[in-house]
């Protein structure tokens, strides 16, 4: 009995720091954000008045908020399928490689591990007009016209998506490769003996068994694209989310409301909306995609 108490006490002692951090740096701020979203607080005024849902009404009447919301959904809609499909195809091909695996993997993760700020700027330069922009140089070499990329209201968002896909694909390839290697060889061999062709092997065995990995990566990538910020901040002029708000995602909207206009009520209301979107999409994805496969 005494030993048991000692054990529990030690356990909580060992957990003391993480639990304290959790309470003060995660839990309290979360609750506090919810609370502030129902007040009219800006940093300068000392009083917080409870205003009910006024901030929520205000942001939904704000056209910039609606554009940011739409942009965020565009990032997800363009980005997530591209990342998942591209990395799955590449991983299926790369799974056949046996030599120098470690070296190749190091190369694919390079975009993922280098600072996002630096890679964003690198791409920003690459997207420029000739002679600095190597992408346009390349297009001109092929006889194609120069494009404006980040300077255009229609091309800027897809250009940022391309950069983000470039960053995330390497990471997803590695996860898919690990998933592929965990599929028992016997399943594939048994199916081959039964006369299954390559396509059947892929669609009836490999992909269904890879489902947990696909679910994991889709949820994770969705959250990543919903939270997109650093790339947009660094790839648009003055971190504005321009041209003309065409690339501004929710997180940048929140950042500007909170730290440029100091309108904390509106900013936190927008964070609550973002939180609900992330929660909702994640739950739906887990429900829809997570079908158990057993053989």
């Amino acid at each position: 009995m005494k030993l048991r108490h000692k054990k529990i006490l030690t356990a909580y002692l060992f957990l003391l720091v993480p639990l304290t951090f959790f309470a003060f740096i995660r839990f309290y701020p979360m609750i506090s954000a919810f609370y502030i979203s129902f007040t009219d607080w800006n940093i300068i005024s000392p009083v917080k008045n409870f205003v009910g849902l006024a901030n929520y009404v205000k942001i939904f009447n704000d056209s910039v908020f609606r554009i940011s919301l739409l942009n965020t959904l565009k990032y997800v809609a363009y980005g997530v399928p591209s990342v998942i499909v591209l990395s799955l195809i590449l991983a299926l091909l790369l799974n056949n490689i046996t030599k120098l695996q470690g070296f190749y993997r190091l190369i694919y993760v390079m975009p993922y591990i280098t600072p996002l700020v630096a890679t964003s700027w690198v791409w920003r330069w690459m997207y420029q007009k000739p002679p600095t922009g190597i992408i346009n140089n390349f297009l001109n070499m092929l006889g194609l016209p120069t494009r404006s990329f980040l300077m255009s209201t229609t091309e800027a968002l897809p250009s940022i998506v391309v950069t983000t896909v470039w960053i995330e694909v390497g990471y997803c390839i590695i996860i898919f490769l690990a998933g592929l290697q965990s599929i028992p060889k016997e399943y594939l061999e048994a199916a081959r003996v039964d006369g299954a062709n390559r396509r059947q092997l892929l669609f009836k065995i490999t992909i269904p068994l890879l489902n947990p990995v696909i679910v994991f990566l889709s949820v994770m990538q969705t959250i990543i694209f919903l939270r997109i910020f650093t790339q947009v901040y660094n790839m648009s002029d003055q971190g504005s989310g321009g041209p003309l708000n065409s690339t501004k995602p929710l997180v940048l909207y929140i950042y500007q409301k909170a730290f440029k206009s100091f309108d904390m009520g509106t900013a936190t209301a927008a964070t609550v909306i973002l939180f609900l979107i992330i929660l909702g999409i994640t739950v739906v994805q887990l429900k829809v995609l997570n079908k158990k496969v057993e053989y």
Partner: protein
Amino acid sequence: MNFAHKILLILVIVMIVFLSITPIYWTFVTSISSDKDLIKTSKSWFPPQPTFRNYQEVFGLSKDVYSVGNQIKRTITNSLTISFAVTFLTLVFAILAAYAIERLRVPLRNYISFFVILTQMLPPVILVIPIYLILSKIGLLDSKFSLSLIYIALNLPFAIWILSSYFQRLPVSVEEAAIIDGCGYLGALWRVLIPMSKPALFTSGIFVFLSSWNEFIIALVLTTSLKSKTLPISISEFMGRFYTNYPLMTAAGIVSMIPPIIFASIFQRFLVEGLAKGAVKE
């Protein structure tokens, strides 16, 4: 595998390697080019007259305290201090916590992990506003200390998770023997569990390091002066201001990429294992 398939495979590999490396390589080439070579429309794969002048400037050989180089040098020091401190402390706290969860079977452990996962989904921006307000109230804005505390808090769940799932796979018998021999919990942890968990420690260590080295939005909000500003923030600011000084800015970019690339090369095996762990084991 037939011949056509093999050719396709080689093409794919060449393409991926090319696409992964080109932007970084090109940045490097720009950073060692002289201004006049950059204006040329026809680019060569390597500058005719490579120069490391920009790196000399980034590493602050200039005497002027307000030079770009000196400011970048200070933020590099800040970033290194913060990243190493965060990595070390996160590992210490995570080891203790993982031990409590996995071996001491702390009561309510399922609820604890549920809450941790729930908050893990939150975008950092939701935390950043209240944290900013708290820190400004207690006067701890713009400090390496508070930024490190936040990074530790944000990285702990992942590190605890990696370590506790690794502990789960290790046999309990040796530890029990150590405890019976009078080692106590800490002794068993230090003498038995930690030496056996090196791979998991490396994996979580690299991740914590990379995430503190690369973090942007929290540092952007919480740091205002050279006292605590991190490298990504100074890069972002300078890039905006000296938009046209490509060689200098690309040199700063390359410098920011060096620590992650060095770590990833040394700990390549652990990095890949760690990345894969999250997904394959549900």
